[in-house]
């Protein structure tokens, strides 16, 4: 983890809402991060907090981020151009557990939750990966084995969890890895836990420090009969779905 001076090498518009920002970081490529980890990007429109963005991919010493323009910071980032410099703090957080060879991994993502799993897939070519991806409409859709949209504008009409139970009944799955809206992940855990114990979820919370000192980004994690608050930025963002307290 370092506060790097990054250099924008590319910023590609994917559609009206999504773009792919590529940042060159002068550091040992092996130190640039693992699937599930994220960076905190410094922007002008957010002076106090940085913007947490997952690693979408890494090649050589270039880190790619897939970003959805939803507000002032993510909009500002959409305007960055080649050769602009940017301060990026990372890699932060705990990664997804490594995939062992041939492990049957089911990835389930919603919207921009696609990003960290993309890097997971690229990192473990020898795992057996099946990917369900869902979104509100076709702008929210990226390559996957099964596509779901709420409005039916692409793939299957419905939530990404539509056929999940059916699929789990019919297929052997070692692990599920998921990132997306909280309600989606909550449903996945509820549906899938009887079939698959190892469900890793990637959580989000508003962050201040990003490095585990302020306890701003707390999430409720089971602790026996009780619970305790863990930090998304340092203890997470990856947690076991069975350990998260979903009702709040």
């Amino acid at each position, binding site marked *: *983890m*370092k*506060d790097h001076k990054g250099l924008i090498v590319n910023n590609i518009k994917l559609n009206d809402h999504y773009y792919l920002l590529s940042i060159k970081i002068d550091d040992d490529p092996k130190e640039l991060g693992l699937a599930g980890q994220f960076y905190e990007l*410094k922007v002008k429109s*957010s*002076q*106090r*907090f*940085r913007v947490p963005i997952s690693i979408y991919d890494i090649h050589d010493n270039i880190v790619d981020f897939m970003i959805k323009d939803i507000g002032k910071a993510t909009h500002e980032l959409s305007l960055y151009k080649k050769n602009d410099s940017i301060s990026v*703090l990372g890699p932060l957080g705990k990664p997804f557990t490594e995939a062992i060879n041939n492990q049957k991994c089911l990835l389930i993502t919603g919207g921009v939750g696609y990003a960290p799993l993309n890097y997971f897939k690229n990192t473990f070519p020898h795992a057996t990966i099946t990917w369900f991806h869902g979104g509100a409409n076709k702008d929210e859709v990226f390559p996957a084995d099964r596509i779901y949209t709420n409005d039916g504008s692409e793939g299957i009409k419905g939530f990404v969890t539509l056929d999940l139970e059916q699929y789990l009944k019919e297929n052997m799955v070692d692990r599920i890895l998921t990132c997306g809206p909280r309600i989606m992940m909550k449903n996945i855990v509820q549906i899938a836990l009887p079939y698959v114990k190892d469900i890793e979820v990637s959580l989000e*919370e*508003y*962050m*201040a*420090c*990003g*490095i*585990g*000192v*302020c*306890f*701003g*980004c*707390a*999430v409720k994690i089971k602790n026996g009969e009780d*619970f*305790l*608050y863990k930090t998304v930025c*340092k203890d997470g963002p990856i947690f076991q779905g069975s350990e998260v307290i979903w009702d*709040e």
Partner: protein
Amino acid sequence: MNRLKTSLGKLSFNNPITVASGTFGIDYQQFYDLNLLGAIVTKTITPELKKGNPTPRVYETECGMLNSIGLQNPGIDEFIKTTVQDYKHFTNPLIVSFSASTIDEFCEMLTKLEAIDFIKGYEVNVSCPNVENEGLAFGVDEKIVYQLTKKLSELTKKELIIKLSPNVTDIVSIAKAAEEGGASSVALINTLLGMAIDWKTGKSMIRRGVAGYSGVGVKPVALQMVYRVHQAISIPILAMGGIQNYQDCLEFIYAGASMLAIGTSQFSDPTLPITIINDLKDHFDSNKITIDEIKGKVWGIA
């Protein structure tokens, strides 16, 4: 010559920059050598483990941030066993912040901490609810601040800093009470009470509703309080509230601060305390002045 030398009542520091309780943790050592700080101040601990408040707990506002962490901490015993041990080998002074809900609890905590020789001072957080006084914060009542400080000062020879809440009608009388009670310095300001609402939906941006407001937006208030308190008491002041750069530090020193803490501003720039130390050094060296020479020397007031 080290022009940045400064001190609080019983402690001397190589430079006037420390960190604000609750905004700092050992993790910052990944960014710089923590010995470079004038002092280290740890997050407030309490007698027992505190889980903290429900989320969202933090929110960025136009000019600062809101927090409602709820003093999440492992409790003093766990702190003594693990957290504080991380700071054992630093050579700059270690100041431990603590809080409780009765005067007796405060005293018990101090007694436990006294056993640890590498703790050099205490910052007493009096912004917490006092269960013996209708749950009002200790820090809003000058009589209680006096009583609390008096008891604590009898229990220790180490630096005893009372950290004041700004959410009071008259911070000067509270500071005086701390001085009379035997505090060796005061720290100010803790967070202002603030709030933010999502204008689209009406949802509170912080789960608890009312939260603590910090960052650059509180700076004028902090400066005003440091100035007024400095005019009224003779023990030194550890100042904080919205400091973003060395120029802000100079404002606070002119207002009367001996020592300065960086809080919120670290979040977007983890090495900021070090940048500020270096900038201050340059400023003091090139102007050939010392902190003591300008401390409290604000002028032009009539």
